[in-house]
């Protein structure tokens, strides 16, 4: 079972501002566990790249983006990274 360390955060639930990185990264750990290491690494690298360029970021790490914006940006990076491999 793969899950973020954080809880359900009722104080910010429904606002669409939760940071999705812990959830996405947990997904990368799931792929690694399933034996899909290159795919797992591509997700980790995509997370690191989006955070390093600081755009888009959710409010907890100093940005103004929504949960979905960050998810979409990381997904786009995954597609771009994998194209080079």
């Amino acid at each position, binding site marked *: 079972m793969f899950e973020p360390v954080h809880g359900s955060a009722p104080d910010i639930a429904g606002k669409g501002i939760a940071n*999705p990185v812990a959830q*996405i990264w947990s997904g990368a*750990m799931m792929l690694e566990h399933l034996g*899909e290491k290159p795919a797992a690494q591509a997700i980790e690298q995509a997370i690191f790249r989006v955070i390093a360029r600081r755009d888009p970021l959710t409010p907890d790490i100093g940005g103004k983006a929504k949960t979905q914006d960050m998810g979409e940006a990381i997904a786009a990076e*995954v597609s771009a990274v994998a194209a080079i491999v």
Partner: protein
Amino acid sequence: MKSYKIAVIEGDGIGREVVPEGIRVLEAAARRFGISLSWTNFDWSCETYLSTGRMMPENALELLRPFDAIYLGAVGYPGVPDHVSLWGLLIPIRRGFKQYVNLRPCRLLEGIKTPLADRRAGEIDFCIVRENSEGEYSEIGGRLHRNTDLEMAIQETVFTRRGCDRVISYAFELARSRKNHVTSATKSNGIVFTMPFWDERFNAIAKTYTEVKADQYHIDILTAHFVSHPDRFDVVVGSNLFGDILSDLGAAVVGSMGLAPSANLNP
């Protein structure tokens, strides 16, 4: 094409918001790497508890068994006590599938501000290996003389040789693929039966990994070192309770709870 069946439990609160983003990214990776992922949603949450009296159905583990992995968001909701969501869902799944390792990486990323001064990306990169099936989180104990001045509560801690050995061995194996260093969280000066036993098992297993550096700290000073010297750690192994506390501290040290992933494994 390799295909995997994933059970999804979004749960409550922001779990419902972050899980779809996780699936979005995993699907992008699956497309690029020629993997097929099929997702099956299970609507198990505190809301389910409020309407049915159970976090998940009685045959939940049987329903989950055919899947290759479980992808969980978060459970917990105001009005439902936390022990209900923990003992009604998380712990039955972790224990039912013998997921005795809870692995929690803590890494300071480029672009993230840590609350610690003068720490740069790459300096903090350690993994917490938490015992996930026994220890302090036991169902052994009870209460007596409720609501009188003789009221009392007892909760037993359970450390088994098998339980200690397998999680400590996992920590050493993990360290071999990282920086060859394992730190044990203990408290054998104050807790005089279980923790000395944990130390004995740690030392016995450490002897079989001569190439891995092994050290141990009492949990009190270890929490201080997490703040003062987080760069010293590689793999930190601890009991259920100590590992739980250390992993939230670790997440805070690397900048945000929102960046901390975890895996419950049955290696």
